[in-house]
């Protein structure tokens, strides 16, 4: 009786479809991570400036993404933009926009924290060597800050991958949506199927996120200051 639900998973291409959904999810996460890495580093460097007028807008930007749930951001962009600005956005685009903005905000905070934590003599020595501001960031500060922030960046990536589960709520056909489709088709024949399908999705997410958080912890211990 309990087995019948699990069997469906290996009938035909059901498992393959689930994996396809997962790959789709991961692709969105991956692109968003790349965009946030680039944007986050730039914003992070800008935020190390001591100018209040530069700091303030970015601070607001970061706090907005920290205070308002990501699901709400998804809804806001998904419903507000097409209605008010006459722009067609697919659910995937909305997902990419929200995830990139959120990732960049968090990434900027990580980068900023890492740069600020560098010893002051790094800045002074590079000035003494006659490096310009851009050269100083390019050759001295950012490379060192990168090493310090890698564990936290991997953590953020794990969080972003986990949050992709929310995309099902705005109708992106990712792993959960595919799972629900499989459940709907087979529900009458195999009553226990939702237990197994959701269980498998649970495991799939775990299999991706667990190694990442392990790596992050290892690096944290190795590079502990």
């Amino acid at each position, binding site marked *: 009786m309990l087995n019948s639900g699990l069997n469906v998973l290996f009938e035909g291409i059901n498992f393959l479809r689930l994996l396809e959904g997962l790959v789709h999810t991961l692709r969105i996460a991956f692109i968003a991570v790349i965009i946030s890495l680039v944007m986050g580093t730039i914003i992070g460097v800008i935020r190390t400036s001591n100018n209040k007028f530069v700091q303030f807008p970015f601070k607001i930007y970061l706090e907005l993404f920290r205070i308002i749930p990501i699901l709400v951001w998804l*809804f806001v962009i998904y419903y507000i933009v097409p209605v008010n600005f006459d722009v067609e956005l697919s659910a995937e685009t909305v997902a990419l926009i929200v995830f990139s903005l959120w990732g960049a905000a968090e990434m900027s905070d990580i980068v900023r924290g890492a740069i600020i934590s560098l010893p002051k003599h790094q800045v002074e020595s590079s000035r003494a060597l006659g490096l310009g501001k851009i050269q100083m960031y390019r050759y001295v500060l950012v490379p060192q800050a990168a090493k310090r922030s890698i564990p936290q960046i991997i953590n953020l990536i794990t969080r972003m991958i986990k949050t992709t*589960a929310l995309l099902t709520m705005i109708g992106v056909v990712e792993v959960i949506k595919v799972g629900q489709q499989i459940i709907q088709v087979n529900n009458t024949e195999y009553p226990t199927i*939702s237990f197994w399908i959701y269980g498998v999705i649970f495991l799939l997410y775990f299999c991706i996120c667990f190694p990442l*958080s392990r790596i992050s912890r290892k690096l944290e211990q190795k590079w502990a200051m």
Partner: protein
Amino acid sequence: MDWQYFSEVLPHYKMALWLTVKLATIGIFFAVIVGVICSVIQYFKIKGLHQIVQVYLEIARNTPLLIQLFFLYFGLPKIGITLSGEMCGIIGLTFLGGSYMAEVIRSGMEAVSKTQLESAKALGLSNIQLMRYVIIPQAISYSVPGLGANCIFLIKETSVFSGIAILELTNTTKNLMGIYYKTNEALFMLVIGYLIILLPLTFFLMWLERRVRNAEFGA
């Protein structure tokens, strides 16, 4: 903006806001309890339990809340365990939150310096006394920033409850959008709803962090 509409739906939002706060509070309360228990087990590396807690922490931290909830709400009834939506929400929040709280409290306990432990042991305190009088009071002051961040994180996570038919803020908004087609107004109320809960809390936690930092031992 349609102001008439606001007054019409305000009661719905009031109820939703109340439900969000209620579920979040209960969830956070149990999460802290689970967190304290798990962190003590981890700290003393109690045989047997230590490994079980480790497995729990890894599972809870590395899976999305939405899937945990779907599993509880849609999966478990099929093998004979039926829980109401709100029950699932609280269990899910406790399950997820407990692991995050445990992490923060444990690192707070580990931040208590070794000399303190040695002195306490030299004074002849037992393990329980050591916990009660030396480690926990200091660990709390170290963990306050992390605990606060977790509270905000868990309150935000309640938005995920909309996936399992709990009428909290996000789900109410979705329903009202379906009934009235007032997208802008409904989403405006949604954002305001979360700001009403989270902004005062953020400021309170900032204040608390400053207070506790000043009270820190030897600083």
